């Protein structure tokens, strides 16, 4: 976790800081280099980083880590450079002496991507022996990426002391990377290095091996070529796994968007073209929740989605009930008219949101537990996609259980199967209608919370899902939640396997055409209900 990491880094930094204090200042290339930070020139900054990092000066680490965090202040007029600590106290970067305050004319030393890479490389060799495990791992990895010869000695030093296995692996990989590019390394060392990197077996190993150049001994070049070959073939297998995962992930998004529709369309037979707008309302609810949290209770930000889910359900559900009572109930048995009226409704809702929240995208942040990714074998799984998949399946299961075990679920099924009979048994059918529609809309609202994490929160959000959702429900078979599940995942996976072959646009067209043809073959979808009841 980044926050955690930086906190630990700071502790480490402070301890170094205290050591630096005790040392007397000495003049020389280090001071000159520090002064270069004040030149407002990227090349000078780059040079200064190199000199400072390799100076061996105890101030090197505080300076460079301050540079990374934007806490290195430089005064272009006096050429003085200051390090502002995380506690707000500042020192003179050249001498290490504390200063009362940083002059107003000083501003943070600016970085660009090239400099960030230099900073990473410099920090890498400086933090190889940090007490923090994460910092060490990151350091080893950035040394691996930069594989500069100067880092060999620190890496070997660290390797000797390291006890943690994963850091040790990372360090030996870093060492191997350096050796591979070191012109005076022996052939044996290089061959060993190739083997180490081959064992790593990922894209970065491939990158490193393809980059070793032509001035290598023949045996090394050969070993590298065979390593590349074997890594590539294992990656090819992984890419199929990856496509399958992406398909599942896309399928979960489709399912989430379609699940509410499976209720309103599948169970009630209501064509709700404003379904997408219910999703949008859910997303905007998330936005409002986050706004309130951001301004009032910033500490709760990580829980914002948990708060938004029930709220989105209630808001979208309530709007759904209002829509059912005011419009849809007059149109039962007239599916085509319902379609038109709800389309009109979707225009109104979109424009209403546009008027209230403005036409531009609104920012909905990812809580920390939904940011980032982890590696599973050779594929990257992002947390937000994983959580959405889990969340979707949870919503699906809860819905199934609800339909099966609760009184409302029972009443809903009764009304769907035989309205007149249900009414004569004392079920308030109109109340059930309203609640069913509210349920479908509420679930669409919940979908909006999840979709706000991966898509735009704009008035057009819903429109981009409506056609896909209908395709899923129709493909899966109307009136069958399991059909919707299977339909969504089938379409998701098919799409993701088509995309690398046909490209995103043609892939999408192909899917649409396939669905149209499929409907001809099975007009009632994958899991159609049979029998006389369906025909009526």
């Amino acid at each position, binding site marked *: 976790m980044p926050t955690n990491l930086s906190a630990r880094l700071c502790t480490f930094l402070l301890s170094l800081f205290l050591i630096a204090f005790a040392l007397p200042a000495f003049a020389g290339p280090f001071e000159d280099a520090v002064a270069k930070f004040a030149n407002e020139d990227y090349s000078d900054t780059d040079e200064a980083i190199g000199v400072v990092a390799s100076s061996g000066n105890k101030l090197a680490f505080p300076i460079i880590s301050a540079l990374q965090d934007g806490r290195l202040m430089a005064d272009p007029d006096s050429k003085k450079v200051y390090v502002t600590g995380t506690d707000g106290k500042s020192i003179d970067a050249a001498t290490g002496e504390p200063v009362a305050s940083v002059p107003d004319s000083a501003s943070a030393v600016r970085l*660009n991507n090239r400099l*960030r*890479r230099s900073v990473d490389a410099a920090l890498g060799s400086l933090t190889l022996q940090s007490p923090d495990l994460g910092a060490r791992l990151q350091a080893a990895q950035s040394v691996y990426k930069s594989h500069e010869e100067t880092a060999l000695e620190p890496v070997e030093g660290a390797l000797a002391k390291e006890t943690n296995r994963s850091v040790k692996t990372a360090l030996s990989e870093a060492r191997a990377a350096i050796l591979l590019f070191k012109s005076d390394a022996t052939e044996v060392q290089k061959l060993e290095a190739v083997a180490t990197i081959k064992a790593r077996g990922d894209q970065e190993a491939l990158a490193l091996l393809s980059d070793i150049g032509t001035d290598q001994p023949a045996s090394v070049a050969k070993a590298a070529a065979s390593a590349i070959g074997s890594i590539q073939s294992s990656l090819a297998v992984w890419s199929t796994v990856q496509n399958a995962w992406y398909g599942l992930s896309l399928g979960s998004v489709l399912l989430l968007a379609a699940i509410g529709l499976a209720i309103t369309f599948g169970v009630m037979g209501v064509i709700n073209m404003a379904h997408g707008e219910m999703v949008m309302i859910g997303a905007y609810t998330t936005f409002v929740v986050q706004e309130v949290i951001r301004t009032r209770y910033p500490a709760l930000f990580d829980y914002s989605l948990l708060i938004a889910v029930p709220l989105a359900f209630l808001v979208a559900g309530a709007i759904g009930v209002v829509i059912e009572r005011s419009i849809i109930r007059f149109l039962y048995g007239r599916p085509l008219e319902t379609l038109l009226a709800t389309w009109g409704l979707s225009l109104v809702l979109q424009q209403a949101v546009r008027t209230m929240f403005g036409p531009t*995208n609104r*920012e909905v942040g990812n809580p920390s537990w939904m940011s980032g990714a982890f590696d599973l074998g050779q594929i990257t799984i992002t947390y937000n996609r994983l959580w959405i998949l889990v969340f979707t399946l949870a919503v699906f299961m809860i819905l199934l259980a609800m339909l099966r075990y609760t009184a409302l679920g029972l009443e809903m099924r009764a009304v769907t199967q035989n309205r007149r009979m249900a009414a004569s048994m004392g079920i308030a059918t109109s109340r059930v209608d309203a609640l069913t529609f509210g349920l479908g809309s509420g679930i669409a609202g919940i979908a909006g919370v999840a979709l706000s994490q991966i898509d*735009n929160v704009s008035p*057009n959000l819903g429109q981009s899902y409506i056609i896909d959702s209908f395709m899923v429900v129709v493909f899966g078979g109307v009136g069958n939640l399991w059909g919707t599940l299977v339909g969504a995942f089938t379409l998701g996976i098919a799409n993701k396997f088509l995309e*690398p072959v046909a490209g*995103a646009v043609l892939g999408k067209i192909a899917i649409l055409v396939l669905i149209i043809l499929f409907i001809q073959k099975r007009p009632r979808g994958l899991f159609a209900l049979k029998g006389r009841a369906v025909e009526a």
Partner: protein
Amino acid sequence: MPTKPIHDIAASFSRRGVLAATAGLMLGLASISGAKAADDTIKVGVLHSLSGTMAISETTLKDTILFLIDEQNKKGGVLGKKLEAVVVDPASNWPLFAEKARELITKDKVSVVFGCWTSVSRKSVLPVFKELNNILFYPVQYEGEESERNVFYTGAAPNQQAIPAVDYLMKDEKVKRWVLAGTDYVYPRTTNKILEAYLKSKGVAQEDIMINYTPFGHSDWQTIVADIKKFGSAGKKTAVVSTINGDANVPFYKELGNQGVKAKDIPVVAFSVGEEELAGIDTKPLVGHLAAWNYFESIKTPANEKFIKDWQAYTKNPKRTTNDPMEAHVIGFNMWIKAVEKVKSTDPDKVIDALPGIEAANLTGGTSKMLPNHHITKPVFIGEIKGNGQFDVVWKTPGLVAGDAWSKELDGSKDLIGDWVGKKCGNFNTKTNKCLGSGS
């Protein structure tokens, strides 16, 4: 079955009814056209979508023109008359753009129109402006390959945005491998064609260029981001040049951030991502990714600071952002005012002839000039995304870059120039010394 005899029908056919209905319709038509233009104001047409998918971008531009007109009227208007904005809503519907343009010019008798965002909307209104001989100021960066007498292009041509950005990446970031990712429409297609030709001319091999197109509003970027990562791990420094359009950018950047594509590893330089687009995302994972524009809100010049202050005061929103197309409208509007004052008339013919050569200060400390090809000179900035949704300028062109109507990199257009002053031609072939096509 019984059938009505013919004479019956003739009898029931009401001649009076037809006459009345027709006359009513004609009168109705005539009275619509009878709307009189007030003579004591100069009318300025604003042709930006206020609803539909493009409202997200264009609403701000409508507000910008209203703001500029307000400011100008505070200074006493122009030629002693107040300016009056005529706002219409083409509703992101391209044929409606043409209809509304016609209405603005014929019915409302505007002297100039500021409008359009997408190329297709410009293409849609183009014949109308030519036919009715009026002026359109078009404020958005576009694919070039056009120079029309009635249109003034205040946004960037490809050589004022794409090429400098690629130059920067090549020189400063030492990029060797290129991903050209774009939405599948004309601007990205053309820009990528130009870039491909340019990169090849700089010695980049075909296998080091990956081109990828996605549909409008694409939201599932998993595969493409993974492909980019894979392409970028071939051992050479890789960068992504993104011509991805508006709405699709948010999920794209979110996916980039989540899959851990850092700017320091694979930087993305975008041509369609500005302050407004970033307003919808948490930019912290995106720090270091780049955008190339002719203006950034964060640029510190007195002119820009005053503009932002006045704009936020006018819109009563202290957080309202500014962006590149807004600056283009500011420049275009000021150029038009100057041209009108120069010829002391709002007659389109006179103003069109007066505009080339007119100079107006831009907001970034320079002075832009209208060129004979109806494009303007502009500085080019490369900005890095900062954590607060603004840009930090990391590079700028030493001087102003003149906009090329016709790309030098494309076979079809390398010999063409637009020159409405000397040659009176938008597509003049310098090889054959002929004005091509309809421009003659």
